[in-house]
């Protein structure tokens, strides 16, 4: 795995109505890795992803791309963000939604077919988006993410709505995507799933980063050599 730092977050601060939601967030993202932003509901994971993607304005948003400043207006050149709980264009069939995204990014039919096959969307291609189950709706979002060319893909709760078998299938998709060189940043609150897929973790609680590193690094930091991610998270937060 390459150790090149692609994305460096030096300072992100965000407030809502004077209340701090994110405070002094700082971490690095290396090329080709899968990073998990771990935290309970309300920790600020979604807010962090939206600020990182340049969708949400923040009081401070100091982000660098390969050593150069990356202002919010240019974040979409490097980052694509897949939000949680989104059902795009519900009156359209799945094929039309995929065609729109593929067309915008000039993707070929082969690339669309590959994305459909990888996420298992073939059974529902001609269904309207509003009639998809939660799992297939999330597969559609994942397919859209696979069609985008940005080197970093942010995903908010990528396993929400999947059963155990489906989670394993999606894990393989994400690992395959990372093996092709894409960098994935996943906001996850299900710690067992995060432990299975992520190379490194950013532990977030109450809007602050409480720990950054691999599972081994975090175990050493907490003096718990056999602890799972849940134990480590509780110890650090």
């Amino acid at each position, binding site marked *: 795995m390459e150790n*090149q730092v*692609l994305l460096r977050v030096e300072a992100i601060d965000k407030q809502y109505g004077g209340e701090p939601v994110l405070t002094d967030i700082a971490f690095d993202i290396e*090329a080709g890795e899968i990073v998990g932003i771990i935290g309970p509901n309300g920790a600020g994971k979604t807010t962090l992803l939206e600020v990182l*993607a340049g*969708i949400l304005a923040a009081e401070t948003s100091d982000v660098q*791309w*390969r050593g150069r400043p990356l202002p919010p207006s*240019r974040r*979409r*050149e*490097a980052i*694509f*963000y*897949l*939000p949680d*709980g*989104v*059902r*795009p*264009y*519900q*009156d*359209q069939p799945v094929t*039309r939604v995929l*065609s*729109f*995204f593929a*067309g*915008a*990014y*000039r993707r070929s039919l082969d690339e669309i077919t590959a994305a459909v096959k990888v996420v298992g969307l073939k059974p529902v291609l001609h269904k309207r988006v509003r009639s998809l189950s939660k799992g297939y709706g999330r597969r559609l979002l994942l397919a*859209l993410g696979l069609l985008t*060319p*940005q*080197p970093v893909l942010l995903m908010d709760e990528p396993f929400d709505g999947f059963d155990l078998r489906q989670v394993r299938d999606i894990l393989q998709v994400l690992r395959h995507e990372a093996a*092709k*060189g*894409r*960098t994935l940043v996943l906001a996850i609150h299900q710690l067992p799933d995060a432990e299975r897929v992520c190379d490194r973790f950013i532990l977030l609680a109450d809007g602050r980063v409480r720990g950054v590193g691999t599972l081994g690094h975090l175990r050493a930091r907490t003096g718990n050599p056999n602890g799972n991610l849940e134990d480590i998270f509780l110890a650090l937060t």
Partner: protein
Amino acid sequence: MRSHETFRLEGAPLAPLLAKELEEILAGRALWTMLLLMCPLIGYSFFQAVSLYGEASAAGLQSPAMTSSLSPLDGVLVPTFGASYVAVTLLFPFVAIRALGQEKESGALLLLIQLPYRSSTLITAKLVAVLAAWVLSIIPAVSALAVWRMLGGHLSAPETLNLLFGHLLYGLLIGAIALFAASVSESAATAAIVTLAFTIGSWVLDFTVAGHPGVFEWVARLSLTQVLRTFEQGFVG
């Protein structure tokens, strides 16, 4: 292997975006409900206008002075398009709001703003979709003009085009107000209320203060109806 270079946001094809916007607005029930209501409304207005104009013409046979004041523009075209004006004022906002409101409510807007299109391009595409919806909405009135010609009625091309242009501007104005309302409101319902407050408020201005001297006359000129009235008078103001 995937490149770690950023994606250059240049030359994204417009066709997929325009196709998506048109499909979204055509898939909405609001447009077809509006057309369903407009057809009998415009048909009845046209029938009444032709009937009254016929009676006035018959009476004019006895009075050449009266005949010279008869005009198909005032007698047939303006009343027929008047029904279209009422429908556009009350129903077109619901059609135009869909162009943005649906994406806001479903969360698809978070995906759309990340695509390789400038904000101005996205807004223009939505206005094009609103324009296309207006063109569909004017078909019943234009059909009535065709029937008028088949009945042997006179149509002055400059006057007719001027009237159509006035209604086009009015429709686009309503559409633009609706899009603005959709962008600042949290829901489509709120956006509809905001837009109707503009349009119906404009009617109230027209009814209550038009014709009064002084500051009331200036206020009355702000009415949206006054904008259209200029084009109904047979000359470009």
